[in-house]
């Protein structure tokens, strides 16, 4: 899979390996138990400079999405409207 995705120049891994590693790094940051419990993979990450850099990249993106999109105002009328409709529904 040529030019498959995120690839750092000088990476010791093939494109396909990069994809698989990055998928697991993302899952690690998402606290996916399957990956966190994969001791072999976690050791590999700790000892791989390239992987640690990728972790920072993925962490930045994740934090960016969360920080920029988290806060939003909820209309005060929404709760009231839901209660009224539920009341009507309940008869």
């Amino acid at each position, binding site marked *: 899979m040529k030019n498959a995705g995120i*690839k750092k120049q000088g990476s010791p891994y093939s494109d396909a390996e990069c994809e698989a590693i990055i998928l697991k790094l993302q899952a690690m940051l998402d606290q996916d138990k399957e990956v966190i419990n994969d001791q072999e993979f976690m050791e590999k990450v700790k000892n791989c400079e390239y992987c640690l850099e990728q972790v920072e990249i993925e962490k930045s993106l994740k934090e960016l999405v969360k920080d920029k999109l988290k806060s939003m105002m909820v209309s005060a009328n929404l709760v009231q409207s839901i209660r009224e409709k539920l009341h009507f529904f*309940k008869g």
Partner: protein
Amino acid sequence: MIPEAEALPTITEETKEATDAFFESEMMVHIKPLYHFAYRLTNDEDDANDLVQDTYLKAYRFITSFERGSNAKAWLFRILKNSFINNYRKNTKEPTQIDYEEAEVFLNTGKAVWSDSIDLRDKIFRSLVGDEITNALNSLPVDFKTVIILCDIEEFSYEEIAKITDIPVGTVRSRLHRARKLLKEKLAVYARNMGYAVDNNEDEFENNQDITWGVEKVTKEAE
């Protein structure tokens, strides 16, 4: 799955009071994250309000199918997601299913090489404002957008996302991966439009216009 109405036990007068109290304490507390999710899906305040109201009416109607002690928030999100799919998605211009072939072609055409320094990329990330992130997120296929919202904004686990979206955990994992890759591409375009130079990586893509954000090459032209 929310069972058909006919198969559900009805709420009797004896249980109504307890049901109402349960509904109030366990369900109504999730309005804010539900609204967030609805708004991110619909991109419209009125549609989001309608979707949340519809979700709560369905939740009350089917409350007897909710397993006490299980995750009420995830249950509500699942109802909302299904309502959105059933009632709203057909009215949008978005494809009914992700065209994975198309997405894969886009991702594999050599537009996804990131080789800049971590600090610099973080700086570029931080310079993007909320609107740009929102636009990039909204430009994703709805199934991609959904998993990113559920994971990164609402912080559901993969298992919870799998239940909400009716897909296996492994698919959640791979879909998130594809979604994030596509999102990075969208953000790279915004960054270039902001004035960050994005040069060709000659080692990888000779004579093309692909975005690489080379470490030493990236400079902010706007300044």
